[in-house]
């Protein structure tokens, strides 16, 4: 019989169990759906910017965004290192690194908030111009997704969900996390190019 899917832990004391890799599949798939959402926004951005006589007025992207990007990249490293520690059974190091990553994510969001404040102070609001509209929409959408990621990482850090192993839970959250970081880098570059 050729390679086919089997339920690894299916017979575990008679209880029906979902194989751990289903969670990884689920997250991969979910990221595909989320990607489509952002790609729709990105294509709207590109179309809108490219329209003749569209009234597009570029503005200076707040400098703090560079710092935020560094912070977010650092959080990715922290999360990845933490998973390495987990796989080497260094639980204390794992926990510290994981928390550090999550906290850096919080700092990133705070930094985004500062960027917003700076723009508002300059009277550049959501409705001021298409260029600013997209800025707020991109940062809000990515920020909201990252916020959900932070919640998930804190939950995993403090209280293991019942159906997943810690290994799977951290793998799944870190997939999401790295995706959100990569997405931010992409959106940031796009916003920079758009000005």
């Amino acid at each position, binding site marked *: 019989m050729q390679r086919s899917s089997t339920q690894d832990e*299916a017979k575990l004391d008679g209880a*029906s169990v979902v194989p751990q890799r289903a969670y990884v599949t689920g997250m991969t798939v979910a990221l595909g759906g989320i990607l489509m959402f952002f790609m729709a926004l990105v294509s709207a951005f590109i179309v809108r910017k490219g329209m003749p006589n569209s009234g597009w007025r570029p503005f200076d992207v707040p400098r703090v965004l560079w710092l935020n990007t560094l912070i977010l990249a650092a959080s990715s490293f922290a999360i990845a290192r933490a998973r390495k520690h987990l796989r080497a059974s260094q639980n204390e190091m794992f926990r510290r690194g994981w928390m550090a990553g999550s906290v850096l994510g919080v700092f990133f969001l705070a930094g985004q908030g500062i960027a917003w404040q700076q723009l508002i102070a300059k009277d550049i609001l959501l409705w001021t111009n298409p260029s600013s509209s997209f800025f707020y929409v991109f940062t809000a959408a990515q920020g909201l997704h990252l916020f959900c990621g932070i919640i998930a990482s804190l939950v995993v850090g403090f209280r293991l969900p019942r159906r997943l192993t810690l290994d799977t839970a951290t793998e799944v959250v870190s997939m999401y996390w790295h995706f959100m970081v990569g997405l931010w880098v992409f959106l940031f570059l796009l916003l920079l190019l758009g000005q």
Partner: protein
Amino acid sequence: MSAQTLPLRPPSETPKGFLRKYIFSTDHKVIGIQYFLLALLAVVIGIVLSLLMRFHIVWPAAHLPFVSGGVMKPEQYLALVTMHGTIMIFFVLTTAPQNGFGNYFLPIQIGAPEMAFPRLNRLSFWGTVVSFLCLVAAFLVPGGAPISGWTSYPPLSALGAIAGPGEGVGQTLWIISIAIFCLASLVSAVNFIATTIDMRAPGMDLFRMPLTVWSWFVTAILSLLAFGVLLAAGVLLLLDRTAGTSFYVPAGIAVSEHLQTHSGGSPLLWQHLFWFFGHPEVYIAILPGMGVVSHVLSCFSRKPVFGYRAMAMAISAIGFLGFLVWGHHMFVSGMNPYSALTFSVITMSIGVPSAVETFNWLATLWGGKIQFKSAMLFSLGFVSFFVTGGLSGIFLAQPALDNVLHATYYVVAHFHLVMAVAAIFGVFAATYFWFPKMFGRMMNETLGNIHFWITFVGAYCIFMPMHFVGIAGGVRRYADYTGAAYLASLQPLHRFSAIAAFITGAAQLIFLFNFFWSLRKGKEAPINPWNATTLEWVTASPPPPGNFADNPPIIYRGPYEYSVPGVRDDFIPQNLEPDKIIRTGQE
């Protein structure tokens, strides 16, 4: 593997208490029934709306007692149009075939005890319920339900109440409802895909999966990739309405002499985003039906599906190509005419896998031994309507012809034949086929037959005349056709449709009666009343929690082993051990 081991889990307990067991259940079978019942409620509302619409078209000045002012106003008619389309497409056709039957039978047909993410499943269902309530609430707010159609094109849908009645709070509620629906659908899609990939029983290779599973799987992929785009489009529309942005609204708009302050947005942007979702959406509506029809035709012809692999590939091809054709809704929109021809060519090419599917259905019947159960009648009816509705699409796919037929009743005929009839026939076929398994009782076959005949003839009577209205240039979405002379001359055709609609609508009561009566009084159903081969028919009716009790199945063969030469029985269940097959000794 990680150093951690999976903590030993307690054996799965049957939830206690009415709320846990029937309302907030995480059991995919309960959730499947819940989705089905939601769709049933939605379709009843949707049909009532459509009958009101038909009535108004034929008798626009008629006095209606329950309408304030006595006579239906144009905006009320357009609100019916909008809500009818929205309810039917989202809460009936995207819900029953996929989330209703798919939720119930996907895990069972692949030999799994449960969906991969049962609690997310529960979240999806209740999210859909909230979405539905939000939508229906639009009827009750000041200004009423939106009037921009289920397609909700800006600027009409973006300018707020100044653009028309219902365009205030009603339109905002519509957007919020759809946004919630998008989220619920995305979560559901993740569940379906992960379950199909990772939870198949030993031996259940991809090409041993029933075609119903193939169709649910491909449909879930379509949902996954399409609903995110609709969500994005809706967010931008909401911002244009509430936050003064100008994603869709160009500069220099003057509505009723009021100059709007928007700047340089593009109405076509909405159309691109919407139809990028909208076209896959209609395949989401029809693919599960195609899977069911293959499944049922095979069973009641006592023959394997002709060209099983080709069918699986055709389903996948239709799904894939469905993402590349959205521009055919926009031929006359002002879009680049060169891209129009590209979209046209790809659209025509979808006819190819569709032709393969149709031919293979006929070839499945050919040489078989056909039993005309109700499920079979509706499957045969599906084939007929799929052909008729699909062929009218060939006209619309050509931009030169679309110049004439766009936004006429020809389009209305086309999409109703494939969606409102064929896809619904798929739901009926699935219901008659799987009712015994879901509820442990048989539905009444005589009532089922009568239901089929009236609906089959009635549906053709409703929608065939609409082709002619369209060919003569009869425009759609008009509250009153007595204004333009040539439109008024088409009224007899509308009248014929209307009368057929009332009769056919009423005939659905037969189905409702049969359904609910059989729940209580139907004959008790055996495990396998149809002598079918797939896994749902090897377990109890209805299946126990975990689906297979203590006998998780192992699969030895494909899903449609009917009338295999040299075997005594004319069907071999997928999980029957090879040494247990009783041969005939004659070839």
